[in-house]
């Protein structure tokens, strides 16, 4: 019964998507929807406060790393995995690659700064945070189907 309801919902949403709004290359469902929106809001506010001290910027990049890890874990290009496989972010191929790329960049940042805290200057850490926050905002813009 629950599966039937999901199929019905997918069909209705699919029709509505094409008919009224157009199909975005990045769609979310479940807890991921408020998560993506909230993260974008936090990132937007933070972008207005940059530059911040290095330690604070570093903390924020670690926080964004958690966001992008969750995006990577939940992203799929397979509509069946999206509706029935527990995945909560449906993306086209290009945006799927972007989500994975940003998750990898955050992993790389954490790995490098753990062994080498002085690798980046304060300005560079702020620059990385700025790119990271902008990416979080752009993920929401992709979900909304609007331009950055």
């Amino acid at each position, binding site marked *: 019964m629950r599966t039937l309801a999901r199929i019905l919902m997918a069909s209705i949403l699919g029709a509505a998507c094409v*008919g009224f709004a*157009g*199909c975005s290359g990045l769609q979310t469902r479940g807890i991921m929807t408020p998560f993506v929106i909230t993260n974008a809001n936090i990132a937007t506010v933070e972008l207005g406060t940059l530059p911040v001290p290095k330690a604070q910027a570093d903390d924020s990049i670690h926080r964004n790393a958690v966001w992008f890890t969750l995006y990577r874990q939940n992203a799929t290009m397979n509509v069946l995995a999206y509706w029935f496989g527990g995945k909560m972010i449906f993306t086209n191929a*290009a*945006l799927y690659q972007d989500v994975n790329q*940003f998750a990898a960049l955050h992993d790389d940042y954490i790995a*490098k700064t753990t062994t080498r805290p002085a690798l980046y200057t304060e300005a560079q850490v702020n*620059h990385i945070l700025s*790119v990271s926050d902008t990416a979080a905002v752009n993920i929401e813009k992709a979900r909304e189907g609007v*331009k950055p």
Partner: protein
Amino acid sequence: MTLDDLIAKLPAQFKPWATQYGPTFLTMTADQFKAWFQLLIQGDIYTAYRQLLAASPTAEADIAAWDVAGGKLADDVIANADSIVLQKAALTKLLEIMLTLGLSVFGF
């Protein structure tokens, strides 16, 4: 081993060098180090130094990678928005045709 472990093991005069070149050695496998050490034994010190510099992670290269990824994402989000506009335009066109057909059938 972490960079801090490496620095702790070294005499004081080598510690500043470890900060710059240590991360490269930490990422080397034993075979890579053996090949690099072989260059030193053969006296090919310029090649050895060039290899060391090429393998050394730099902050500038990392920043460039972030910028490239950010640019690609922005382009993909723009392409996504354009695609939605195109879908709507195509559907509107289709509905115009359907409307014309309907009006013709019903004699308006």
